């Protein structure tokens, strides 16, 4: 069937099987990997070789060393890493929790004002975080009602991140599809609201939880402007923020930056590889369904 022009793919490249075609394809794939993964591989390699200045960066190492990491540790990279993990850990936890609770109400309950609330959450997705960051930092300096001062603390980086329309949206869409019969059966058996939520609806949401989990992780890890405004001291920096301060080093030059960058890169890459299915499902369903 695919012998003519090939109908499995738009370009029909899979049918080109001659040795020339294979060579061309290999070169092409190699080039693509070099272009897109190359810089990141350069970080991987650069972290372990002596890189006194940026021109010494290479993909073909002569010499391996751990000095870059030694210097990075001496310069508090573990502290920055810890800060990042704290912010992401708690941030993601609360983000998911708040989102699934809200989604449960929006997806499965009919009540006055539900459309309005949904619209309000969606509207926040039109508010770019960067634009709100400065007024947000002012609010964090003196939080209304509770009069907390959250600037200069990791809490100030964690709490705003909990509000994310995307995860509410995804969870709501997913929860809508759960058959009402399951809920009714549970109710008849005497289950209360919370029990239905926790034991009936939620376990069925695992794919969606995977999606908001992985996207939430990436989004929080990537945060820049907010932590930048909240931190009052280098000690509060998350790792991405700290990179800027590590651009050069008297002992190992730019190597310390590469080592720290690798550490900042690894969690995202590991998370992606481990949860690839969730990542891709979220990308395509969220965007294409529109």
């Amino acid at each position, binding site marked *: 069937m695919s012998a003519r022009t090939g109908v499995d793919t738009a370009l029909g490249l899979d049918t080109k099987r001659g040795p020339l075609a294979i060579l061309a394809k290999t070169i092409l794939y190699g080039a693509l990997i070099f272009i897109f993964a190359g810089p990141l591989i350069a970080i991987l390699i650069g972290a372990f070789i002596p890189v006194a200045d940026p021109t010494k960066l290479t993909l073909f190492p002569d010499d391996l060393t751990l000095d870059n990491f030694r210097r990075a540790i001496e310069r508090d990279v573990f502290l920055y890493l810890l800060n990042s993990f704290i912010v992401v850990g708690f941030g993601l936890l609360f983000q998911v929790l708040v989102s699934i609770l809200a989604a449960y109400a929006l997806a499965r309950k009919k009540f006055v004002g539900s459309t309005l609330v949904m619209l309000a959450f969606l509207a926040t997705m039109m508010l770019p975080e960067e634009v*709100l960051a400065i007024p947000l930092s002012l609010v964090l300096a003196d939080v209304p009602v509770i009069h907390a001062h959250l600037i200069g603390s990791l809490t100030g980086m964690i709490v705003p991140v909990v509000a994310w329309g995307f995860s509410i949206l995804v969870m709501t869409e997913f929860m809508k599809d759960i058959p009402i019969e399951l809920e009714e059966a549970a109710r008849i058996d005497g289950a209360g609201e919370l029990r239905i939520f926790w034991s009936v609806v939620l376990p069925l949401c695992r794919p969606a939880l995977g999606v908001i989990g992985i996207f939430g992780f990436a989004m929080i890890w990537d945060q820049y402007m907010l932590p930048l405004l909240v931190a009052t001291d280098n000690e509060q920096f998350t790792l991405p923020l700290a990179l800027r301060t590590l651009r050069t080093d008297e002992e190992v030059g730019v190597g310390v930056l590469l080592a720290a960058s690798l550490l900042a890169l690894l969690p995202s890459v590991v998370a992606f590889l481990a949860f690839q299915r969730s990542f891709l499902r979220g*990308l395509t369903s969220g965007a294409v369904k529109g």
Partner: protein
Amino acid sequence: MTRTGPRAATTDRTASAAPTTERRPGRSGAGTPPSKLTFRGGRRWEAARRQLVPWLFLAPALIIFALFKFIPLVRMVEMSGNQVRPFLGDIYVGSDNYEQVVSDEVFQEAIWHTIYLAIGTTIGALVLGLVLALVLEGQLMHLWFVRSAVFLPVVAAMAVVAEVWRILYHPSEDGAINSIIGLLGFGPEPFLGSADQSLNSVMVVGIWKGAPYDMMIFLAGLAGVDRALYEAASVDGASVWRRLWHVTFPALRPVFAILLTLAAIRGLRVFTEVFLLTNGGPDGSSEVLMTLIYKLGLERSGELGVASAGSVVLLTATATLTVIVQVLRRRGAAK
């Protein structure tokens, strides 16, 4: 993501979980509507409870959103109409801040750079993403491997991307990119250090990071194209190019629309990469709105008001864009 372990019900919700009924024997009560289950007070209590429970579930989200999204938004609009003087009290200046945003040269430059960068990055990532999707479409294992490798830039944190590209863009002839273009016979370029090239250099990084993302979305769209149409075109003897033009691209139109909106919004709010690569570049040659607003916001000398006015303008532009695209999409779909 593993499921979080069982958690003790938070105290403000045990009230709603408490009024449960005595167990009905077997499933004989299967047809009993919930309102007949006994609660204290009977039916009226049940109805009120039904309206209240959703709000309890929504409460945490509403509080957090109110505190950290809506209140800052209101504050921002408020500040945009004032000359903000911390500790001394604000002075109402009406639309003065907005006038400054519109007329001030620095702002105008920044607005122009932002638009230029947004359009360039959007189109570049879109075209490159489409090409990547077409080339890497398919189920074979090696294609999956190449796609995963190509997707890595999307996964990496922007700060990491910016730092490594700063290194790659090193202006000497031994800098990574200069070495490569040197092999092709082109001279070493200053890239980030030149007022002419700084903005375009930032754009390349944006495209590099954005194209694989668009690729994935296009791939999903491509997977949805009816293979029977390809069959038919093939039987009719249509060339690959004609097939692309008449079958594939039309099928991808909704994808284009979504990607355009997302990219445009991403483009307008750009901050991190510019901040880290050039911080506005030599002489403000790569200054964008957000980096300018950030600079103004940091100097607590009364510029917060202007910064806020700039933010409101940016916000309005983003919102308008989103709405326009949504309207166009609806109209397009209705045809």
